[in-house]
């Protein structure tokens, strides 16, 4: 796979070499052959012209003294020039005077006109050259020489040259092919190696490797050096990043451990405090009751009233301590995740709520089949709190409607508990979930302000989020999510 990519540039270089040298050679050969053919043609015409001049000069007296046989004798010497097809002498008036035919006698050809002002003209036609030369003797036109020569030798020569050119071209291309290995060593191989290395680095993320330097000081060497420098920089940065990451990780772990320890201490402290507060409280309550029962006759109405108040306060404090213990327990107990139907739990909670105040006209609309992967004990506490709140804050209404359901939002499930009760001022929505935070007067709606704090802890322990939307006297909606993977698993 790597080699294929590597070969392509080598092939390209070789092909480029061959193409350039081939084109140059071909052009050179073409120019050479063309020049030679042209020069040879010129030489042929020149020689033919000389032959015509000689034949003309030698025919002057014969022309003037009307002796065609003598001219024919002269012309027959042209047998020595096998390319001459025919040679004829005409009188100045254009009448054929004497003729020579290489092969066998023919009809005297019509005499082409020589352009005015010239004594000689030639034409290339049908693989032959025709030359017409005017014989001028003593300033007077005395006759005309007509000569026809074939171009077999030129054509043979051209063919021979084309053959030689082809052989030279082939040999030069073979040589170029050989020389291209030098290019490969100095250009292609370093590039191929560099490409291989880059691919390896990219694939293995190993920045410690380095490309080998070539001997020469060219752009390729610069490229390799820069590449190596880049690798070094990446390696350095990678190291620094890894170090920073490790440090951060360690610090987080330390902090987490510290935090966990502190949290544990705090929880243990609050548990023991709550637990230990119970005993004296029981004492206060017990002895207040004893006073009321055993010394009722010795106390006046005010005394009895004070004792009743002491007892109410101790009982409230008892509930508060229970809530605190519950909150503490929620955080401390082990999570036991299992598949549970939240709708089923909600219905059981709703039934219990209705039992406490059977006279109230309140309707529960609870969705069915809300399976999730949760700690069902903790989720029950959550629903007790949320549905209990809804029940509590709708208590001033003639009739109430409390909903529990699930919607799909942002790719996950969101559960909601909605009521049409008193609601709350949304400005304080962020204070809802703090312990001992209350938005309503305890005389309007009783409570310790620990419930929603407990709920938030449970939801957080399930990897979820809780928030609320409301407006005063417009009801409230509490939303919570659970860790997504749990739903998927469910």
């Amino acid at each position, binding site marked *: 796979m790597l080699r294929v990519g590597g070969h392509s540039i080598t092939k390209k270089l070789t092909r480029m070499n061959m193409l350039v040298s081939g084109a140059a050679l071909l052009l050179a050969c073409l120019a050479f052959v063309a020049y030679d053919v042209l020069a040879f043609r010129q030489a042929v015409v020149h020689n033919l012209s000389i032959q015509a001049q000689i034949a003309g000069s030698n025919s002057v007296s014969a022309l003037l003294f009307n002796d065609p046989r003598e001219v024919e004798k002269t012309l027959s010497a042209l047998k020595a020039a096998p390319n001459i097809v025919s040679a004829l002498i005409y009188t100045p008036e254009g009448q054929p005077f004497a003729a020579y035919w290489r092969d066998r006698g023919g009809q005297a050809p019509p005499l082409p006109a020589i352009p005015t002002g010239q004594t000689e003209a030639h034409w290339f036609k049908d693989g032959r050259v025709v030359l017409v030369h005017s014989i001028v003797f003593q300033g*007077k036109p005395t006759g005309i020489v007509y000569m026809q020569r074939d171009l077999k030798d030129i054509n043979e020569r051209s063919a021979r040259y084309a053959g030689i050119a082809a052989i030279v071209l082939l040999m030069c291309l073979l040589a170029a092919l050989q020389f291209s290995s030098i290019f490969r060593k100095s250009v292609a191989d370093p590039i191929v190696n560099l490409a291989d290395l880059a691919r390896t680095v990219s694939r293995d993320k190993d920045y410690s490797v380095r490309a080998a330097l070539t001997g020469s000081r060219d752009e390729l060497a610069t490229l390799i050096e820069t590449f190596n420098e880049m690798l070094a920089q990446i390696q350095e940065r990678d190291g620094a990043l890894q170090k920073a990451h490790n440090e951060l990780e360690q610090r987080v772990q330390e902090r987490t451990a510290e935090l966990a320890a502190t949290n544990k201490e705090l929880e243990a402290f609050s548990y023991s405090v709550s637990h230990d507060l119970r005993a004296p409280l029981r004492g206060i309550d017990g002895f207040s009751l004893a006073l009321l029962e055993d010394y009722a006759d010795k106390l006046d109405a005010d005394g009895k009233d004070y004792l009743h108040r002491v007892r109410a306060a101790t009982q409230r404090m008892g509930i508060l301590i229970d809530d605190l213990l519950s909150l503490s327990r929620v955080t401390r107990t082990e999570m036991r995740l299992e598949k549970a139907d939240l709708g089923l739990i909600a219905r059981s909670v709703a039934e219990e709520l209705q039992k406490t105040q059977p006279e109230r006209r309140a309707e529960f609309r609870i969705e069915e089949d809300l399976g999730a992967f949760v700690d069902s004990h903790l989720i029950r506490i959550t629903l007790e709190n949320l549905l209990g709140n809804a029940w509590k804050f709708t208590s001033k209404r003639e009739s109430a409607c409390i909903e529990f359901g699930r919607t799909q939002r942002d790719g996950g499930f969101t559960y909601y508990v909605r009521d049409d009760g008193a609601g709350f001022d949304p400005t304080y929505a962020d204070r809802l979930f703090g312990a001992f935070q209350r938005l309503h007067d305890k005389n309007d709606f009783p409570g310790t302000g620990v419930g929603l704090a407990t709920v938030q802890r449970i939801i957080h322990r399930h990897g979820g989020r809780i928030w609320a939307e409301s407006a005063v006297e417009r009801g409230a909606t509490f939303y919570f999510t659970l860790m997504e993977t749990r739903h998927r698993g469910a």
Partner: protein
Amino acid sequence: MKLICGIGPLRSAPRAGLTLSRSGHLSHLIPVLLAWSFIGVSSLQAQQSKPTEYEVKATYLYNFGKFVEWPAMATAANHDPFLICVLGKDPFGASLDAAIAGEAINGERVLAKRISKPQEALNCRVLFISSSEEAQLKEILTTLEKTSVLTVSDMPQFTRRGGMIQFVPEASRVRFEVNLTVAERAGLTLSSQLLKVAISVRRNSQPGD
């Protein structure tokens, strides 16, 4: 040496812009006519009907001049015109004058002259001895012995008898034979071109043979 004749002029450009033309093409008729008018009326007539024997001979007389080199002494004495003389009864008539009208050899005007005595032939370059003078041939040749006059005749046995060029009829053509020894003795140089077209060239005959 300025009067050297021969084939040299081939290399020189034509003096007048003569146009050669093939016959039978209407488009070239005008240049042909121009050329002919330049060459001369006699040529025109010669082309159109078969030339008579003496028309041919007249042309030959003139053409001989082109292939013969006279010694410098002879040419210096009578430079221009180039005289072609006819001794005795003139067989050419107007055809000789027609043949040479307007012609020149080596830049010298060519003129014809009729003479009756050999003494008058001293200025001539070419002398045609008419058959009417056959009886006096020996005297005539003796008179011209020390001169450089090219002697031409159509009387039989002319070269054998000390003449230089003799016309010989052959079929429908006119040919000639040459006595080179006599010509050389007179200081004349006959071009090989001329000798090439002669029927025969004698080299050893003595005058009065």
